[in-house]
């Protein structure tokens, strides 16, 4: 087995609208920053993988346009997933583990501002029984939140505290979109209030992966990926126990998350109620620092927010603020699919 690490991370400032920026305009500074941090040039990268969704901005093949920002000529080894960039990172990790590459550039971006993201996300649902009803993303999260309240796992006050804790932490995050004292607001879809929901916005992120000594040469304290796995649950919402996340737990188990405690967790929980589910499924106690970045409640560029969790966790290891961190990304309605990675700094491993 090869040792693979995240050696650099960059993200854009996440904003409600970026009308003046095309996707490539949004992405390019982030690519330059992450390459600059390692001193690598695009043509020195072994594999490039991106994650995005054309439906967000309604532009077919927008990812091919975004590739202009990489400098992909002469042709590079490249791939794309119509998913959050966390899954692009997974593909890149596999590529490096097979020995086909020593370094990888992973990036993702989401421009939600041109469309109505609550409606857009209905198009990812089961086309026979769900999509014709247009149940929007907030409605589905609210059904999960009510199930948690009925089960006695949380209440509206506890959810408001989760929102406040995340957005207070985000005050120190210069890239965050929604920070500080944000009112709970009215019910958007009961029991979720506007404060329980993520901001809608545009943003981009990128990381560089490297193997073994290459990672050590590129980064003073690489964030070694000790394990990474992703699992999915049935697509029928009524088949699942919405108060639990067996797929997140299984992914964490396969990633080795339960072998030793983590000090930090970056959870991709766009809705406050989803943090409740994930803390329970992942067995995170009060001694774990959850979402020091502010998480997806502070900035939720769709298709990038999961990759940002991996990047934020890695960046804390890079600067010595964490020794062992769990990073999580989700996809689909009500935490249907979950990816968990365990990252470590070198001293913790010794």
């Amino acid at each position, binding site marked *: 087995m090869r040792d693979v690490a995240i050696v650099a991370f960059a993200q854009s400032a996440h904003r409600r609208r970026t009308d003046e920026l*095309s996707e490539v*305009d949004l992405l390019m500074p982030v690519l330059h920053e992450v390459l600059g941090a390692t001193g690598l040039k695009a043509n020195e990268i072994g594999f490039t993988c991106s994650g995005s969704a054309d439906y967000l901005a309604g532009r077919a093949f927008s990812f091919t346009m975004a590739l202009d920002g990489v400098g992909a000529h002469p042709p590079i080894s490249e791939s794309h997933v119509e998913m959050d960039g966390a899954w692009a990172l997974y593909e890149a990790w596999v590529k490096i583990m097979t020995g086909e590459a020593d370094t990888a550039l992973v990036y993702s971006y989401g421009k939600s501002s041109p*469309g109505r993201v*609550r409606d857009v996300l209905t198009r990812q649902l089961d086309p026979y*029984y769900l999509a014709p009803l247009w*149940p929007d993303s907030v409605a589905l999260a609210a*059904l999960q939140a009510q199930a948690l309240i*009925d089960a006695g796992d949380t209440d509206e006050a506890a959810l408001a505290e989760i929102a406040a804790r995340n957005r207070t932490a985000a005050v120190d995050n210069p890239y965050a979109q929604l920070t500080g004292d944000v009112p709970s607001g009215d019910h958007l879809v*009961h029991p979720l209030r506007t404060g329980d929901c993520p901001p809608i916005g545009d943003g981009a992120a990128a990381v560089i992966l490297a193997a073994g000594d290459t990672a050590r040469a590129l980064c003073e304290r690489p964030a070694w990926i000790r394990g990474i796995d992703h699992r999915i649950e049935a697509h029928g919402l009524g088949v699942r126990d919405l108060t639990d996340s067996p797929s997140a737990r299984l992914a964490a188990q396969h990633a080795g998350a339960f072998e030793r405690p983590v000090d930090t967790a970056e959870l991709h929980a766009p809705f406050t109620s989803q943090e409740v589910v994930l803390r329970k499924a992942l067995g995170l106690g009060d001694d774990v620092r959850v979402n020091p970045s502010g998480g997806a409640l502070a900035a939720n560029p769709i298709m990038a927010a999961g990759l940002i969790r991996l990047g934020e966790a890695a960046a804390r290891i890079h600067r010595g603020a964490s020794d062992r961190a769990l990073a999580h990304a989700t996809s689909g309605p009500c935490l249907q699919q979950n990816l968990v990675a365990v990252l470590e700094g070198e001293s913790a491993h010794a």
Partner: protein
Amino acid sequence: MTDVLSAPLVVEFPFTRSLGPVQSAFLTGLRERTVLGVRTEDGTVLVPPVEYDPVTANEIRDLVEVAPTGTVTTWAWNPSPRRDQPLDTPFAWVLVRLDGAGTALLHALDAPGPDAVHTGMRVRIRWAATRTGAITDIACFEPYEGEPGNSEPAPHTGEFADPVTGIVAPARLDYVHTPGRAQSAYLAALEGHRTVGERCPACRKVYVPPRGACPTCGVATAEQVEVGPRGTVTTFCIVNIKAKNLDIEVPYVYAHIALDGADLALHGRIAGIPYDQVRMGLRVEPVWAEGTRHPDHYRPTGEPDADYDTYKELV
């Protein structure tokens, strides 16, 4: 800096999907006001039913009929219905476990307000007046105080006259498209019948239309360069099939045209010359139509053909 343009963009398409035998029986059943479920290998009755066991992934075909009454397992009050949702007045989203079913179905519940809804409440199906074999044949659920349905589901063959074998699912998404800085500047210049590309600061190539970045160097392009108006046909094809909604007589020629000063060919229609006389190297110029941002077509300038070496890099 040029003002950023924006325009409404509607993406609309009907998805035509075929149904498996279980989905076909379920949706045909809804048309006939009959709700079917399927038994999984562990005996759970799934409603709505699926073709494959969610746990073992084996094919499942054991159909049963369940009641049109059931119990709310979770709910969410929607004060502002969105376009295409089941009701246009405030309603509750509900997961309902129908009597006899082991799993819950997502739909809308027509209720006067959130205070009238709770987990565990009893509801029944309100059927749509017109039913076609779709999940929307259930108009919504409504509160129900009557007797519960039989909790023991009855076996069902799944056979109906004239079964539904497919669905057409229309989808419409509305956007406000903003092309960004580079394309906005390009489109603004076209309004004055000028074609303005952007030069890469690294390799010096001029891209038309500009996309904001040099795909070779991966850096932003910013220096604006007016190109054309004349150009050279680098390659072409002859179109023999009339396109829908396009009022152009066939055959006609569609060509890649390298405008003078550009390092990337754009494409356009060639006219003013018989289609079988168009050739690589032909020198052309744009013909603008009233009230449009783009040249209607390109026509020969009458200059001698360009030497192949002058455009071979752009073919």
